[in-house]
């Protein structure tokens, strides 16, 4: 061993131009270190589908840089509206005359049926009347009259099928493509593939309901085994991003001076390790964080929204339980629009929470007393969501934004034995899409005559995911990430693009 000099410091080289270095890194060493970062070196490249994976090329110092899709996309941004708790298709969008006609009778051939909570009672019609809506005359219930007015812009899939009747696994399945915990969410896959157009805002934002988090909490927007860079950033109109703002105890001048000092410290350190993209990436991340400190409060500040917009969403009116929740959810809807307007790639807006009460109280899980429970949830969802759709449309945002309304599964056409509500039902339910690349007005697939099981053009959650990726210009069989021995996909080994609904 060479004799050491106590406390010796490597001699600094002249300061590099870091910006030039970072841009060099993007073309040279950065790309090499990237494969290292993603652990994809030297692997056999065949995925299960037999197709070659098309992994995005990510520069670790610019993980959110926009990246090219696989084919020409119809949509550039996605808004997912997720009704947590399993919103009943039979009381909203899936009109079943036979269910009304046979109200009070047992469901033929299913008299011994045991579902999630137990035995089933008789077929039960919705407490809300269905009426023809819009130009197209689509039947929607009186629970959601304003969304009913939007039907000419909607593309319904009435033949959705899940594969679990439990909320946690169900929400996982809809959000991540797996019933188990720990897999990357759809938004993570999309931002992993495409990066984002706005470098000063998070690429993927999850907006939790004003009442709290959904049933499976942050797993709905987690990044699973994808790098943490691609996880959803959670905030809503009422609670900002944690640690975003300059802490109260730090004066602005001090904050800036500390930041500048840190930058010089890190740059001097980097001189000793030319070519190390991870070090450079950390320096860049503090710059991006500083820009986010300006841009996120700006986008989250609804103060500039005019009165007619607040009224459109129902954000103006408070004073009762329903109105208060509606106004808070409406503010989240306005926030969603503002984020999409600024180019955020993926926005996931939640309606319903598990946190503030058990089943049915603050989410769509109407087992016991559907009429009273949905009499709160319907009005909370209806006007703000319809307002959001109208606002997106009038601003031209629907041209490049795909809207997906979904829930973890549907509910039974029967009431539960001894109760006034519907049990879980993954065998058939409804989702709808709107905006870029989908037909509207359009209805695809159908459940059976009672709305119990998907019967015509059965559509799996994998199919829905494959279709969303397709509209974004991504081949769901080729968008992969190597983890734990497998080229993982959002759609596992399943899924077909539902081409009939493409515009």
């Amino acid at each position, binding site marked *: 061993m060479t004799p*050491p000099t106590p406390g010796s410091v490597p001699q600094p080289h002249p300061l590099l131009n870091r910006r030039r270095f970072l841009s060099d890194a993007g073309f040279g060493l950065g790309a090499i270190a990237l494969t290292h970062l993603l652990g994809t070196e030297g692997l056999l490249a065949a995925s299960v589908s037999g197709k070659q994976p098309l992994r995005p090329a990510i520069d670790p110092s610019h993980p959110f840089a926009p990246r090219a899709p696989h084919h020409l996309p119809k949509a550039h941004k996605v808004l997912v509206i997720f009704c947590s708790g399993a919103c009943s298709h039979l009381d909203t969008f899936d009109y079943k005359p036979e269910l009304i006609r046979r109200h009070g009778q047992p469901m033929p051939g299913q008299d011994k049926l045991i579902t999630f909570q137990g035995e089933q009672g008789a077929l039960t019609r919705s407490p809300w009347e269905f009426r023809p809506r819009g130009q197209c005359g689509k039947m929607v219930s009186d629970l959601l009259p304003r969304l009913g007015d939007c039907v000419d812009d909607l593309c319904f899939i009435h033949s959705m099928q899940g594969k679990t009747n439990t909320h946690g696994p169900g929400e996982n399945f809809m959000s991540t493509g797996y019933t188990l915990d720990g897999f990357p969410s759809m938004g993570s896959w999309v931002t992993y593939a495409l990066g984002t157009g706005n470098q000063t805002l998070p690429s993927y934002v999850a907006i939790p309901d004003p009442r709290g988090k959904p049933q499976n909490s942050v797993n709905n927007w987690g990044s699973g085994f994808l790098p943490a860079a691609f996880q959803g950033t959670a905030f809503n109109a009422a609670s900002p991003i944690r640690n975003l703002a300059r802490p109260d105890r730090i004066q602005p001048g001090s904050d800036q001076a500390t930041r500048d000092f840190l930058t010089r410290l890190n740059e001097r350190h980097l001189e000793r390790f030319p070519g190390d993209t991870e070090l450079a990436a950390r320096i860049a991340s503090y710059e991006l964080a500083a820009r986010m400190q300006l841009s996120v409060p700006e986008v989250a500040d609804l103060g500039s929204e005019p009165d007619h917009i607040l009224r459109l969403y129902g954000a103006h009116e408070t004073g009762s339980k329903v109105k208060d929740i509606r106004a808070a959810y409406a503010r989240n809807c306005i926030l969603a629009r503002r984020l999409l307007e600024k180019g955020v790639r993926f926005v996931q807006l939640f309606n319903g929470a598990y946190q503030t009460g058990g089943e049915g109280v603050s989410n769509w899980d109407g087992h016991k007393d559907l009429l009273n429970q949905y009499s709160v949830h319907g009005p909370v969802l209806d006007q703000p969501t319809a307002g959001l759709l109208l606002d997106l449309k009038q601003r031209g945002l629907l041209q490049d934004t795909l809207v997906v309304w979904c829930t973890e599964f549907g509910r039974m056409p029967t009431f539960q034995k001894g109760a006034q509500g519907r049990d879980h039902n993954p065998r058939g339910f409804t989702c709808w899409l709107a905006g870029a690349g989908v037909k509207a007005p359009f209805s695809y697939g159908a459940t059976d005559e009672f709305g119990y099981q998907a019967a015509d053009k059965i559509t799996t959650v994998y199919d829905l995911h494959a279709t969303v990726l397709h509209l974004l210009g991504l081949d769901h069989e080729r968008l992969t990430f190597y983890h734990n021995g497998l080229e993982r996909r959002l759609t596992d080994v399943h899924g077909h693009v539902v081409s009939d609904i493409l515009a």
Partner: protein
Amino acid sequence: MLVVLATQCGAASEPTAPAQPAIDFARDLRPILESHCFECHGPAKQKADLRLDRRSAALRGGDGGPAIVPGRSGDSLLLHRITATSPDEVMPPKGDRLSEREVGVLRAWIDQGAVWPEDRPGAEAEEAHWAFQPLRETKIPAAGTGEDSRSAAPAQPIDAFIQEHLRKAGLTLSPEAPRQVLIRRLYLVLLGVHPTFEEVRAFEADPRSDAFERLVDQVLNDPRYGERWARHWLDVIRFAESNGFETNRERPTAWKFRDYIIAAFNEDLPYDRFIREQIAGDALGAPIATGFLVGGPVDIVGSPDPVLTAQQRADELDDMVNTTGTAFLGLTLGCARCHSHKFDPIEQREYYSLAAVFSGVRHGETPLPIPPEQADAKARADARVADLERRLARFIAPTAATTNAVPVSQQRPPVNARLNTEAFAPIEARRVRFSILASTGGEPCLDELEVYDGERNVALHTAGTRATASGTLPGYEIHKLEHLNDGKVGNSRSWISNTPGKGWVQLEFPGLTRIDRVVWSRDREGSFADRLPTDYRIEVATGEEQWTLVASSADRLPVAAQPGAKTTPAIVYRFDGLPVEEAELGRQWQAELERTRKELATLAKPPTTYAGQFREPGSTHRLHRGDPMQKREAVAPGTLALFRPLTMAADEPEQKRRLQLADWIASPENPLTARVLVNRVWQHHFGVGLVDTPNDFGRNGARPTHPELLDWLASDFMQHGWSIKGLQRRIVLSRAWRQSHAPRAEALAVDAADRLLWRFPPRRLEAEAIRDCVLEASGALVRTGGGPSFHLHEVDRENVYHYHPKERFGPDEFRRMIYAYKVRMEHDGIFGSFDCPDGSLVAPKRSISTTPLQALNLFNSTFVLDQAERLAARVSQEAGSDLPAQVQRAWELAFQRGPAADESKEAVLLAQSHGLPALARALLNANEFLFIP
């Protein structure tokens, strides 16, 4: 194209000669199968579970049974389907049918005995896959020469292998890193915290030639080593302390398993023993170790829906099979749950053989042996309670239950909700009636009624016993008469009468049966104590009417008042009308009795831990497409066929199944076990493994960069008693590990990713190590090891648990992060963003991403600001008021070196204008602080 046409034309004119020349499989038949069959019955798909590109699979057949019967083409399903005329039957269902010539080749091949040589090219590759071969005897290459000898460190065998590859690429090792770098690297990699500046100084000044060796030995014996390395293993085995899924409830005793892992590393438990204990520790005196089996997520949402219940159970077993496969064998077995593995030679049947090994394992709080001190204390409390009860007997107020003739001193204990035994002289019975005359609040409830003949429960409905009742509370799926004798306990499998305080149930045996006791309970799981029968009679009859009383509540003490319990106080001590002193004494005894009973209740409980619970399982079946509703043939427990396959009896005792599997995995001949482990250890020293896919040593995984080195390390590891510390000592003493991390342009151009190890690859610390280092620098770190976890979250314990990241932390939360409650799905509010896995899935390798959220958390969080202030205060305290001296000390605490002149100048300026905490905040955010150099 022309050639094909010509062949087909030729084929059409060819007679389907019965006397075919000898068919060569590879030359004649395989191309036919390839073009017509493999698309659906090949590597990518195995429709009807039939696979025709592998000899063993093809001869075994698929869902329809064997496809080929050698020598008998007429009996071979394959030929039958290919020549079928019905469109429902004919194969292939789409595309061109086989030509007559092709059918002729197939028929002749079968009739000639279906000779399918093992050594076809595909099979060769399959069998010869490097990781499935025994470890190769490797010769250590000749030691490096020339430039490589720049290092003062003695060359290790590892270096010979590394240098050989470097030489081929025209590269050399870098010179040895300065001692300041070397000791920081050693501490961060092995202990997960920085050394102190004083330790750095001492090492730099150590003149002994073996200074580094001594340091390594000292560090490997530091208890912080286990705290660091347990984290890596816990990632590999998806350990967490909550259930995951929507309920995500806590597992408050799971920390004992975490402590077990820490101790295993610190004690250098031989790895083969470590494997055995985790799989079958209940048989080896290490019951806590079986926390491994049930460390994964579990969906506890109960439902009467049988499909859901079966799916949940299948998912639990899948988690055990998968984790065992990836952790110990580096194989992804999960694919084989639905179909035979597409890349590795793992059949679907083998997956279910492994599932059968674990089929008796369940999740739960598992009792551990009561420690002797607790047993002694319990015995003392027992005696005291008995004594006090005797003394107090004379104060008992007369009640209905105590007016009978049995003296108090001879009465049995009061009934309780968990378990009551009514023993009597053996008697022949046809029927047993349990009549309830009174109960605590509401309609009485029984979760299980058992009647015994010796050790046999003759009450079970599976034994043919029929239950009837006075009535059953209507409308509840969980409270039904059939639950009374279904062998399942707990409130959700119970019977409730339809009359408040009253009711009867009756069991009728298939014939006259000898019985000697009745065992009954309200809720054996202990969650409910209401609805408890307190006044009851148990009678038996041989014929229709003649009832004989065999037991009743008459000789039981009344149910005592228990604070908070929903039971009716039945024993009443009365002190009125007695002399003052006597009454006072009685009251004191009563108070002491109540106190002692409470203590006793705690002392009587054995300590528990979240570990495996074991029951003899039923049969395991292969599930078609992994669907629990599509059971196929029964599968006996066994191991993979990869090496020395082991099949057990279908009814092999539960524990023996796991023991045998553990032995099979921990065998020195298992080609995967040692390779996989040494690769994991290597990975955490160099950032990347020799095999870059640590959980996939199969054909789809990466190949080793240094295959000979991997095999040499694996052999050496086993020869040295599977000692992980011994392996690590070899690694850190190598020149490769001790070399500088400085980049070199000429080497970057050849091997930018540094897979050949021409320099030590620096990398960012993981979440836990960053937090630990911040606390260490500020002086706040609490070194207490082990014990219950501290919470990084506030917890709302509703039916579903909610976790909210804490904003403020105190000394309770200043222990190392390995001791933080590991909650599934919810990340720590600050360090969770640093690619910290949540234990939902196995995480053999963490990604290292860099995000603005990380920057915000580390720069703005209350936690880091508080620690920056502490660091500043520590600096002032240790360095006095002179600013340059403070800066010097701050550098020493954060980077274990002094500042360069210009660094010091700028730092002084910052501290002058904005205070020392501002400087401390910057240092805790610096790259130099966060990187392993």
